C-alpha cells in the first residue's frame, strides 16, 4: 500500500528556473491493482513515479509505504527500492554486464542475498519476461531491442517488488514488440498478483489491461477512475491533448445515432458482439 499525501515537487526550487512538476498530488495505491498512469509529455508522470521509490524528494508533502514515511530519518531506502520496482524509460540503456544472467543478478546481489537465492530469482525473473535459456549467457548488447528491454525489466523483477512501475515500457518498439511486452506484463500480473503501474501517453495501449486510470494534466491529477468512466469523458480528454481508444468513439457515435450499444466496449471483439446484440434487439 502506497499513499501520497499532498505531494508537490518544484524543480530548481528557489532559482529563476524553478518549475512546478507536481502540484498537490494525493493518491492511494492499494495492493494488487493494475493502474494506468496517463498524461502528455511534460505532464509530470515521470517525476511522479520517481517519487514512489524515493529517488526524488518532494518539495512538500509525504509518501507512506506500508504505513511508514519513506523520508523519515533512518528509513531503509534500499529496502523500499526493492519493494517498489521502477523500470525507467528505455531501460535497456542501463544494461552493463557481460551476459544477460549476470545483469539480472545485479539487483538481488545489491540486496545482499546469498548466491543461490540470487540465481533463483534471476532465473525466475527471466522466465517471467519470457527469455529463453539459450540467451542467458549471451551479451545483453547482442539481443534485439525488445529482448533487451525484457531483460532490463527482469533486472527489476528479480528484486521481487510488491509494486512494479513501468515508465513507457513500449516506447520505441514496433507494434509486435509492444504487444509482446504488454502481454508479458499482463501475464505476470495475473500470475503473481503484484501491483502494476503502467505509465503511458496512449490510452489505447493501456485500455485493454488496466482496471484504473489516472490521468495527469499540467502537473495535476485530472481523472482517477475506472477506464470506462474516464473514457466517457472523451471530449474533455481531447481538450487536454489525449484521446480515448478508437472503439470508444465508434460506440459513442453509434449510440448517438440511436443504436443501444455498450459504450464500455474497448476491443474489436467486444464491440462487434455489442453491435450485433443491439442490432438483434432493434430488429427482431
Amino acid at each position, binding site marked *: 500500500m502506497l499513499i501520497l499525501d499532498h505531494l508537490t515537487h518544484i524543480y530548481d526550487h528557489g*532559482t529563476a528556473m524553478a518549475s512546478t512538476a507536481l502540484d498537490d498530488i494525493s493518491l492511494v495505491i492499494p495492493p494488487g491493482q493494475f493502474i494506468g498512469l496517463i498524461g502528455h509529455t511534460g505532464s509530470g508522470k515521470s517525476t511522479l513515479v520517481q517519487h514512489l521509490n524515493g529517488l526524488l524528494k518532494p518539495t512538500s508533502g509525504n509518501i507512506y509505504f506500508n504505513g511508514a514515511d519513506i523520508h523519515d530519518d533512518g528509513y531503509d531506502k*534500499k529496502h523500499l527500492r526493492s519493494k517498489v520496482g521502477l523500470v*525507467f524509460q528505455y531501460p535497456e*540503456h*542501463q544494461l552493463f554486464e557481460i551476459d544477460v544472467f549476470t545483469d539480472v543478478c545485479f539487483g538481488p546481489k*545489491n540486496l545482499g542475498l546469498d548466491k543461490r537465492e540470487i540465481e533463483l530469482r534471476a532465473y525466475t525473473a527471466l522466465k517471467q519476461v519470457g527469455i529463453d535459456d539459450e540467451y542467458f549467457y549471451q551479451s545483453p548488447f547482442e539481443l534485439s531491442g525488445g529482448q533487451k528491454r525484457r531483460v532490463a525489466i527482469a533486472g*527489476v523483477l528479480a528484486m521481487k517488488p510488491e509494486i512494479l512501475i513501468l515508465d513507457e515500457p513500449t516506447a520505441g518498439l514496433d507494434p509486435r514488440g509492444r504487444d509482446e511486452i504488454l502481454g508479458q506484463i499482463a501475464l505476470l500480473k495475473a500470475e503473481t498478483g503484484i501491483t502494476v503501474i503502467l505509465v503511458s501517453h496512449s490510452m489505447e495501449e493501456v485500455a485493454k489491461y488496466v482496471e484504473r486510470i489516472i490521468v495527469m494534466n499540467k502537473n495535476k491529477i485530472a481523472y482517477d477512475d475506472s477506464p470506462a468512466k474516464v473514457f466517457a469523458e472523451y471530449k474533455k480528454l481531447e481538450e487536454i491533448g489525449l484521446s480515448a481508444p478508437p472503439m470508444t468513439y465508434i460506440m459513442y457515435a453509434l449510440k448517438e445515432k440511436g443504436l443501444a450499444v455498450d459504450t464500455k466496449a474497448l476491443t474489436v471483439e467486444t464491440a462487434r458482439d455489442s453491435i450485433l446484440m443491439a442490432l438483434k434487439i432493434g430488429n427482431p
Partner: protein
Amino acid sequence: MIKDITLGQYYQTDSIIHRLDPRVKLVATVFFIISLFVVRGFTGFILAGLFLVFAIKLSKVPFKFMVRGMKAIIFLLLFAVVFNLFLTPGEPAVSFWKITITWEGIRLALTLTTRLIMLIMGSSVMTLTTTPNNLTDGMEKLMKPLGYIKVPVHEVVMMMSIALRFIPILFKETDKIMKAQIARGADFESGNLIKKAKSLVPLLVPLFISAFRRANDLAMAMEARCYRGGDHRTKMKPLVYKTRDRFAYLGMLIYLIITIFADRMIPL
C-alpha cells in the same frame, strides 16, 4: 544529483554581457586570466575581484551559480592550500610539533586560491553568458589566421562545439542511468575507495555505450545532410562587431592597464 557543475553550462537571461560578441568575451576572458597571473600583490587581486564582481553584476547571472561551479574544484583548492601552507620554506608564523607554517606559505596559499577561484569564476562568466554555438563561432573567427598554416580550424572548432553540446546531454544521461541503477539497489555513496570505484562500473559502461551510440547517430545525421567541413560554408548569422563590443574592448584595456600599473605601484 550532479547539477552542481556549472562550467560549460549556459544561463539563459538577457543582459549586456549576454549580448556581447563572443569574440569580445573570449578575448576578455583570456586577458582577465593573464592579468590574474601577471599581478603579484593584493592590490591587483582586489582590482581584479572588483572587475569580476562588476562583470557578474552586469551579466545578471545569480552569484549562486558561480559559487556552485566552485564545488568541482574544492579538492584541488584544498590540496593547493595544504601543500603551500606546510611545505613553503621561510619565516615561521606558527609552529607546533613538527609542523611549521610560514608567512610565505600563507601568502602563497592565499594568492593561489584567489587566482584559482577567480580563474574559474571568470571563465564561468563567459560560459554562462554565451551559448556553446556562439562560443565556438567566436573561436572559429578568432583562430581563422591559423588556417593559413594548414590548421583545420573549422574541424577543430566543430569538434569542440560538439563536445560542448554533449556535456549537458551526458550529464542528463548520467543522472538517468544513476537513478536507474539506484532503483536496482546500487549504492554509489557508501564504502571505501575501491568499493566506490567498483560501483561506478554499472554507471560508466552504459554511459560509454550511450556516448558512442549518440556519436554514431550524429555522424550519420551530418553525413545525411552532406556535411563536408569548412570550405565555402557561410553563416546564417555572421558575427559583426557593434559599438558595445568596441566599448567592451576599451573597458578591458583600461582594466588591464590600471590593474597592472596599480599592482606594480602600490605593493600590498
